[in-house]
């Protein structure tokens, strides 16, 4: 994986006993140069994403993901639409006329998630003790899951996850 791919990896932890309800926040995905920026975003469930349009042309923002479909219509430069995401899951967002525009939203029902740094490292803090699953996710790779059993103390553990992006073509 190159640096761009690494930047799109999300690592999250799901305690077997259930995670505490994450705090909803506001996020922004900007339509710029006929693309979504960022094109991959992990958000806690209940969060709202704003879609400002920085392009000099109109865009549409919609999703056809079952259970999370929405259509924010067309809006021009300087205008903003927003959408709240109340269900956890993977949501694909597109512009219905500019077919190369696509963003992927990972709506997580856990507050324990993070992104990789440039070197491919991650740190998750404040994880609850007990058993759980550690997942490394990338929009174009099969998720890698690792079972964890965390001690009760504030001990640090080191876990390596190997994520393989499928090769396309020859």
């Amino acid at each position, binding site marked *: 994986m190159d640096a761009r791919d690494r930047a799109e990896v999300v690592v999250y932890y799901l305690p077997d006993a259930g995670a505490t309800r994450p705090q909803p926040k506001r996020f922004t995905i900007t339509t710029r140069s006929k693309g979504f920026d960022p094109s991959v975003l992990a958000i806690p469930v209940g969060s709202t994403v704003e879609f400002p349009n920085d392009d000099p*042309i*109109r865009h549409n923002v919609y999703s056809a993901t079952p259970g999370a479909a929405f259509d924010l*219509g067309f809006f021009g430069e300087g205008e903003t639409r927003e959408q709240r995401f109340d269900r956890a899951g993977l949501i694909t967002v597109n512009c219905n006329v500019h077919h190369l525009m696509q963003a992927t939203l990972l709506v997580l029902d856990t507050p324990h998630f993070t992104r990789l740094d440039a070197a491919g490292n991650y740190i998750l803090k404040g994880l609850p003790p007990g058993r759980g699953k550690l997942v490394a996710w990338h929009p174009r790779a099969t998720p890698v899951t690792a079972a964890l059993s965390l001690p009760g103390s504030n001990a640090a553990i080191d876990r390596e996850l190997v994520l393989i992006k499928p090769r396309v073509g020859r």
Partner: protein
Amino acid sequence: MTFTRFCTLSAAGIAVLALAFFATAGWQLSIYDRAQRDSVYAQVRAHQDQLQAWRSSDLRLRAKLLAENAAFSAYVADAIASSGLPGASVDTASINDLLSERREQLELDWLGVLDVSGTWIAGTRPWSSVDAAIANNPLYVSAHASSEIVHRVQYDAGRWFLAAIAPLIRAGVTEAYLLAAIELDQAFIDALSAGAPARLVLAMRSGESESSGIFPADSSFESNLAPVLRTDALPAGNGRVLLADGREAQVSPLFGDEGGPVLVAVIDPPAGSRQALVRPLIGLAAIVLAVLALALWVLWRRVFARIAIACDLLERTAQGDYRLRAPNWYGGFNGRFAFAFEAISARLRPPPPDR
């Protein structure tokens, strides 16, 4: 009849016969030429119709694909409707950008959008006849009247397009019109020429530039524009016109707009087939004339020459020369004459003197 007079009359007769023969042959040739040209013209038209049918079918398919895309129609309609907002104008930038993208994806040469009143909104290239009121353009008028996709050959700014106009419908209402076109370029002309036994030239009406600008200057089509037609009287169908180089040619307009250049097929009858017809005719004429001359020569030798001898014989006998003998003619009229003359001459001839 003297020999000279006989020859003169014979020559005159042969000349009249030859004249009649060649006039008939020329008339038959002109009928043959016309039939050939009509046949070539029919071939050109059939080939052109087939080519255009293929292309227009392809064009209509792609235009419909785009026009019937709900998101595309809604996007265009929304961009046009934005002008209804106070202080807002039609969002041509958005439409232009989308049209450019779709033009590449659908491999079309020209995409444009007109509003319902026929006003040009945006496009990947301008419609140069904007000033000439698109609302009166036959293509637009036809699409507007039928609310269905229509197509025809459209000339614009030195280029020919096979253009289709399709309504952009949102919620059952026609919000705008989509123009989609593919250019009838050198490849099309090459394909047309390949299947058409005729030369294709650009007919310029007065006021048009000598160079069509349609094809690259070094293309075979452009270099064939030497006999560019300059006339206001191009025939509506198959007809003859004067070429710029002074030659007359049979031309058949293939397509073009009124007042603009017209692509025409200059139809030359196939040289080989005409020669194939003319050579046997000339050979036949030569044989007929030779046989006629031989017949006249035999007529002279067998009839007129002998009548002259007989007359000469009778005249000299009438002058008292009874020693004359008839020629050794046997059989037929000549033999009967010789026999009768010998009998008369024998009676008139004085007896030989006694020894």
